[in-house]
């Protein structure tokens, strides 16, 4: 019988591998026929928005750029949403980072702790909070 996994992800993709793990696990869980909710919290909210081209001179080397880009999981969040995952971000955490009201990726929805997380929890069988 299908179950629902809710992942609360608290790290951004540049800090550690938690985002990569969350995406890999979510994809496998969806493929197995279960449902997935994902709530982006803390620095994970930085993955919620559409990427904007950097204005001005970019000083990063190609090698370092390639390394940084490896962990970018934004497009994978869109893919997960296309597979049926519900992905929402915390607007309060976005406000604290100056990104509230920026355009969201197609797979990510506005969210908050008071309503979105509660809505997720009401249908959750397995809760996994991933933090460092």
């Amino acid at each position, binding site marked *: 019988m299908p179950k629902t996994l809710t992942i609360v992800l608290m790290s951004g993709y540049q800090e550690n591998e*938690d985002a990569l793990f969350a995406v890999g696990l979510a994809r496998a869980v969806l493929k197995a026929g279960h449902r997935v909710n994902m709530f982006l919290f803390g620095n994970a909210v930085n993955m919620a928005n559409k990427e904007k081209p950097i204005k001005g001179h970019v000083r990063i080397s190609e090698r370092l750029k390639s390394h940084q880009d490896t962990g970018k999981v934004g497009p994978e969040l869109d893919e997960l949403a296309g597979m049926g995952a519900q992905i929402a971000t915390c607007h309060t955490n976005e406000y604290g980072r100056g990104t509230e009201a920026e355009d969201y990726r197609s797979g990510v929805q506005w969210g908050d702790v008071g309503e979105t997380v509660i809505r997720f929890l009401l249908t959750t069988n397995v*809760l996994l909070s991933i933090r*460092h």
Partner: protein
Amino acid sequence: MLLLINKTNPGLLQRISRLAGDEDPDVLLVGDGVFYGSDFMVEKLRAIGVEEVYASKPCLETRQVKLSDKCVVVGYDEMVPLIMDEHEKTICP
């Protein structure tokens, strides 16, 4: 109980003991947590009551870790039943 270990931390063994209480937990090593898959650390985990030690295949592939033969290597597909069915709760300490 399944404990998701995603980092190395000097207080980890104490934290596991505190979280597990009377239970004998299983452990899933991911990210830098796979460094706890050595013979030395698996013995330490066993000594505080940890039963099964699973280690993430994709995370092992990016690190040179000499894994204990007491660890079970699992891919994402094999983590699904561990997290969704076989354990009542999964905690990331």
